[in-house]
């Protein structure tokens, strides 16, 4: 699961690895493992020790994409993404602004599982051109602008890295 806390604009990744028994739980956040010692748990209130510090956490509001909670009385809003689509869309619009006007770039590494458009086709902004599979999820790469596909740079089954050019739209 991906998370963005507050207005930090930094995406973090987190997962619950497993329960170690005896009230200990192992989580992995941004690639680092943390052991949590549970002191109290309920449906919306938790007390635990993490990194030798005590925390009380209260879930104030919980939606599918956003959680409002307080940590030791400090209130935060955390966005959570089960899909990368949203991030992808956000980043794509950024890339288009930064440079490479015509270049549609992949924001994630993955394998091309489907191609939905052909060269010389006319596309509208937001049309899905290619489907990538990444982290067991299928993510559509969408046109970042209206135009004609001048070139499709990927083939079905190919592996793309982050920042690889998917297509050129003019």
């Amino acid at each position, binding site marked *: 699961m991906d998370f963005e806390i507050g207005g930090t604009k930094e995406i973090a990744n*987190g*997962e619950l690895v497993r329960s170690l028994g005896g009230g200990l739980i192992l989580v992995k956040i941004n690639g680092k493992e943390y052991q949590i010692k549970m002191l109290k748990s309920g449906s919306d209130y938790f007390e*635990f020790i993490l990194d030798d510090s005590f925390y009380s956490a209260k879930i104030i509001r919980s939606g599918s994409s956003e959680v409002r909670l307080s940590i030791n009385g*400090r209130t935060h809003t955390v966005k959570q993404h089960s899909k990368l689509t949203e991030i992808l869309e956000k980043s794509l619009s950024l890339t288009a602004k930064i440079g490479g006007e015509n270049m549609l770039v992949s924001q994630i590494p993955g394998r091309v599982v489907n191609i939905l458009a052909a060269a010389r086709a006319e596309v509208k902004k937001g049309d899905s051109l290619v489907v990538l599979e990444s982290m067991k999820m299928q993510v559509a790469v969408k046109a970042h602008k209206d135009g004609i596909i001048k070139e499709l740079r990927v083939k079905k089954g190919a592996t793309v890295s982050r920042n690889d050019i998917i297509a050129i739209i003019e």
Partner: protein
Amino acid sequence: MGLAKKIQSLLVANRGEIALRVIRACGELGIKSIALYSDEDARSIHVKRADKAYYLGPPSPSESYLNIDKIIEIATNVGADAIHPGYGFLSENENFPELCSKNGIIFIGPKKKAMEITGDKMKCKAVMKKADIPFVPGSDGIINDMEEAIDIAAIAGYPVLLKSAFGGGGRGIRLANDEKQLRQEFEMAAAESKAAFGKAALYVEKYLQRIRHIEYQLVRDSHGQGRHLFERECSIQRRHQKLIEMSPSPVLDHETRNRIGEIAVRAAEAVDYLNAGTAEFLRDEQGNFYFIEINSRLQVEHPVTELVTGIDLVKLQISIAQGEAIPFKQDDLSLRGCAIECRINAEDPFFGFTPSLGTVPTCTIPYGPGIRVDTYLYPGCSVSGYYDSLVAKLIAWGKDFEESRVRTKNALNEFTVEGINTTIPLFKTIMDEDNFIKGELSTDYLERFSILDRMNRDAVESSKRDLIPAISAILLRSEFVKRSHLYQQNISSKQRTGGQGKE
């Protein structure tokens, strides 16, 4: 003079933290405390703490805490010896003292005459000028028309403030930078004043830039003895409403403190003031002091003075109301250490200070060395939308400014209120802000140093610091939800199979 009636029962015509404050003083003095409550306040703490509590009426202030006849009726029926009005509500209603005395009840506060003068800025100015009290340059009386306002503004110099003679707490104040603006604002202000007070009573005064709001705590007894209990600096304000108050002011030296203090006492004498009050001054960058007004009540920020002087102002108020003489001389008083008060309001500082109300399921009130919290909050209480947004006052005493600042900061970190938004994050930012630490204060402090932007940045930083525990909490919660779901499924499958479900 000496009505010398010993007060044995006292009715508190107020609610919230100030009602609780007065009830506590009654407890110390062995006085029976009588509380009043509206429908909204039946479970409020002042009802729980008072010896007796009587029902006033529906939630709206006009039908409850402003219902002067009903309050007098209850006081008479239950045989209350005295009424303490607190602040706000009826505290500055000039008819209240009269009505009390007609019914044989002691009003804890000034007499009608003094209230009439202090409540009318122009009358007050006339009296104070006679007593040689310095004023901000401007009109000497109510302005009759726009042309007169323009003449006065030209003499005082722009920018000028246009004020309603009956306003207060920052209401009805307008700024004009030039003649054109003054013409526009005058019309609007006149209409506003007419709508609110029935007459367009306006006056003009010079707008002083980069000013400090410094006020003096006053007490005066029925024997004509007046004392000042030093100053409080209340420069940190938002829309003319005080946010932080402290004593001493970082800019007052011993000589100035006493000199202005004497002026404050003289101002109290000029209106034959009785009981506790506050003389408010503005101080410009050159160090000039200008008198603005006397607030004829116990102020919200009175605890600041209590902590630096060691004097219990509410108990002193009660003894003065009983006809007793103030038991100390001016020279007996000294200002010890430093105290800072933060007004914690039920408002969201991240969204334009919008009021926030509802139930507070839990809260953590800070304590520890030097910490005092005057509040009506308790776990399970509710914050009503009918009344003032002040929910708590955090006051920290320290041997000097630095100690009281750090104590305030730590206490703010301990202070949690769930269910509502409060101004606590704003105060956390201010306690760490360089200009605040240097004592570089002015009434435009928030805008001048972009404090709200800073608060927003601090919030992002705080979120970054809490990243790991916050994500952990969300992961723990989804695990908890998943497990309880599985547990539920297990139970229902067991039930289906008559308890023989295989594990």
